[in-house]
């Protein structure tokens, strides 16, 4: 295992976690539709109990995404989280609200009342995907940070990474392209949420509404998504030369797609999967498997976007304040020893995936119904 291989391997794993996270944000997407789809209390209970059995996966994937990034690319972890402070903090606030809302909403004595907790779910469903999408977009658009490792030799001000402006990450929202990807992720997650409901719930009122909702969300999704893809293909990208010097290269990401055709293939396959899942679910009244096509498609699309921004001599976390502060796999990764040790640990990941699939299938064998929710021992 060479150092370079390990860097690429860990970038792949981090990217995979990021891709799975965007898929699992169907929980958030579904929650953002809580009041749009659920016309009465019973229907909303059904929706909440559907995503409520999966929210912990999303949450865990978010945490593990952070942990894996920390272990494998610590300089990204410190620079981005410590710099884009407000962007991450707002994301985290909404996830905190979400974490208690399922468990608390129907319990007696919950202080704030059921509606409030349901609105917390909606807020997380709106803000979470939008800002996470925006944060991922900064991998292409750049962020306003400076890195000077020499600062450790300064005993008065030894902090290595700093943000070059006072808004600490909120400035990311001023770049329209970050918002474009944010909204694309947001609408995609709503689509995935509806597709999951179709798969997981059996209810004659609710499900046709989900199919209509997919259609409503698909149009803005396609507009935002295509706009962002167009931007990525046409824009100048942050490239790295053999000496590790960063420079701007026209059509960098287009070149990356063309120079790594496997990733291009995965990307196209993913797009086709998403479209197939959407179209078939909108036009067939009985089709329930759309979530799998669109879900796997989402994983492939997000994975390939992560890969083209990390591989092929590209800076994955570029600095718009100081080009040479930009982060690349090589200049931000952990030591060879740590990457190798963690690579051994990663051998366990297939086992983890296996029991997740096993437990998921055990719980999802039959779609949930209004009757079940009323007779179940444990419901939200």
């Amino acid at each position, binding site marked *: 295992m060479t150092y370079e291989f390990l860097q690429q391997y860990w970038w792949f794993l981090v990217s995979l976690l990021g891709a799975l996270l965007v898929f699992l944000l169907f929980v958030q997407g579904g929650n953002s539709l809580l009041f749009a789809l659920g016309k009465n209390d019973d229907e909303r209970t059904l929706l909440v109990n559907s995503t409520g*059995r999966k929210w*912990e*996966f999303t*949450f*865990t994937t978010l*945490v*593990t995404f*952070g*942990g*894996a990034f920390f*272990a*494998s690319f*610590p300089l990204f*972890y*410190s620079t981005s*989280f*410590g*710099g884009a*402070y*407000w962007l*991450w903090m707002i994301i*985290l606030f909404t996830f*905190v609200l979400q*974490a*208690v809302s*399922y*468990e*608390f909403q129907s*319990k*007696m*004595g*919950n*202080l704030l009342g059921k509606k409030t907790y349901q609105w917390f779910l909606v807020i997380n469903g709106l803000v979470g995907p939008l800002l996470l999408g925006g944060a991922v977009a900064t991998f292409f658009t750049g962020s306003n940070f400076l890195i000077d*490792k020499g600062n*450790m*030799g*300064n*005993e*008065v001000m*030894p*902090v290595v*990474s700093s943000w070059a402006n006072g808004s*600490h990450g909120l400035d990311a929202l001023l770049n329209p392209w970050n918002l474009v990807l944010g909204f694309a992720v947001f609408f995609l997650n709503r689509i995935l949420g509806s597709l999951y409901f179709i798969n997981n719930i059996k209810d004659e009122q609710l499900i046709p509404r989900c199919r209509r909702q997919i259609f409503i969300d698909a149009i803005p999704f396609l507009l935002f998504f295509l706009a962002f893809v167009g931007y990525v293909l046409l824009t100048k990208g942050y490239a790295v030369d053999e000496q590790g010097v960063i420079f701007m290269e026209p059509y960098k990401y287009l070149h990356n797609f063309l120079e790594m055709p496997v990733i291009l293939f995965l990307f196209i396959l993913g797009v086709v999967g998403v479209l197939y899942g959407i179209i078939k679910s909108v036009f067939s009244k009985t089709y329930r498997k759309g979530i799998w096509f669109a879900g796997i498609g989402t994983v492939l699309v997000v994975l390939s976007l992560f890969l083209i921004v990390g591989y092929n001599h590209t800076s994955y976390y570029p600095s718009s304040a100081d080009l040479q502060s930009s982060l690349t796999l090589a200049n931000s990764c*952990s030591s060879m*020893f*740590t990457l190798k040790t*963690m690579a051994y*640990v990663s051998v366990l*990941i297939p086992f*983890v995936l296996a*029991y*997740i699939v096993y*437990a998921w299938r*055990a719980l999802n*064998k*039959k779609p949930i119904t209004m009757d079940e929710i009323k*007779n*179940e*021992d*444990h419901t939200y």
Partner: protein
Amino acid sequence: MFESIDTSLIDWSRAQFALTAMYHWLFVPLTLGLAMIMGIMETVYYKTGSVFWKNVTQFWQTIFGINFAVGIATGIILEFEFGTNWSNYSMFVGDIFGAPLAIEGILAFFMESTFVAVMYFGWNKVSKKFHLASTWLTGVGATISAWWILVANSWMQYPVGMQFNPDTVRNEMVDFFAVAFSPMAVVKFFHTVMSGWVLGAIFVVGVSSWYLLKKRHVEFAKASIKIGATFGIVASLIVALTGDISGVQIAKLQPMKMAAAEGLEDGGNGVSFTVVDDIKIPKMLSILATHDIDGYVPGINNLLNGGYKLPNGETALSAEEKIERGKKAIVALANYRKAVKENDAAAKADAKKILDENMPYFGYGYIKDPKSLVPPVGLTFWSFRIMVGLGGFFILLFIVVWWFHRKNKYQDMPWLQKVALWTIPLGYIACQAGWIVAEVGRQPWAIQDMLPVNAAISKLQTGSVQLTFFIFLILFTIMLIAEICIMVKSIKKGPEEIEQQA
């Protein structure tokens, strides 16, 4: 003029982290303890097939779930705060510290989140056996998670298995097993997880005692007390034992923490232990700290002034000398980087030599005033006494409750039931006090001797951190109040009503 870090930024960053950690530790220990107790109860149900035990299990699982959610909510913030508020720390040691966090996510969190869902929603969907396995695996996941996060914490108290790399300007891992199985981590794991079990036992015994006081759910309460008290005796004895081992470790590895916890200004041989104020037990501190009746225990002044003999025969350096050597290391690092830039091999080798010689004191170079090496003594001193005193009381209580339960007299002893009920808040206080000793007692270090908190932070505006502090304070406090209200309602409603509702 040099730009320097605003001290109020350090204070607010610490306050925010302390707030998150303390709230997190209000919910997690009960989760750890109840997980095991539920596991035992469901095993009884699995073996006997009695619906009574299913109800008992489900009741405690409801309580578990309410706690679990808030534990997760506060936990995610803790993990990300290493990045958001302690970014320089994350840069400086992420190569070592990130690994346990990632492993925790991969191995533990997925296990917890997968099987907790089966535990709640699988009663009518999976086999009894699979369900029982899921309940246990939820607890196992939580416990594995505790292992890795305590490995991470122990590493900050006692950094091992790493080497400083001047080219990347960070510490890098060179021995994974030294980190993952550091003696401090092993002791901390048992001490901390068992303290969670103790809290779980206190909670179960306390709540069950309340039912006895109210003459409700008597059979349920007796069954719960039997398991809770037995479990509590075992766990609390292990807590005491590991606490003792931990004392020796701290005396050796973090002597300033020990001195602060004892309020010991001037040490010596055969030092007595201060119970409170003037009540002292002769020689006891030497016994506790060194397991030797005449063992040498340095006091705060000894540690600052140096000059005493270390166990390895060397003479201890004074704080000033350590600071001096730390500054040398920092200057050498700057020179090393300069030499690399200028491609000056001789200067590079020179700087590297000075750096290596002084590296053990690197963190001292960022210390401005030797006095800041002394942690807040009063807080550490009293927290230590509260922790130890309550720990002893819990052992006694469990034994007494267990004994009278066995003699079938406990249900007729309302005074003891009241004591058990009011011990619940004491359990929480003991847990918090323990972490205060561990964390306040190691100030000013983020990593012992390697990085003080003022060099570990993110460069933010103090106002930003103040604002997020208050947002968290409000958020967590509302969550805590809601959680307590929900638990009280659920407990008042009791186990049988839950059964009827189902």
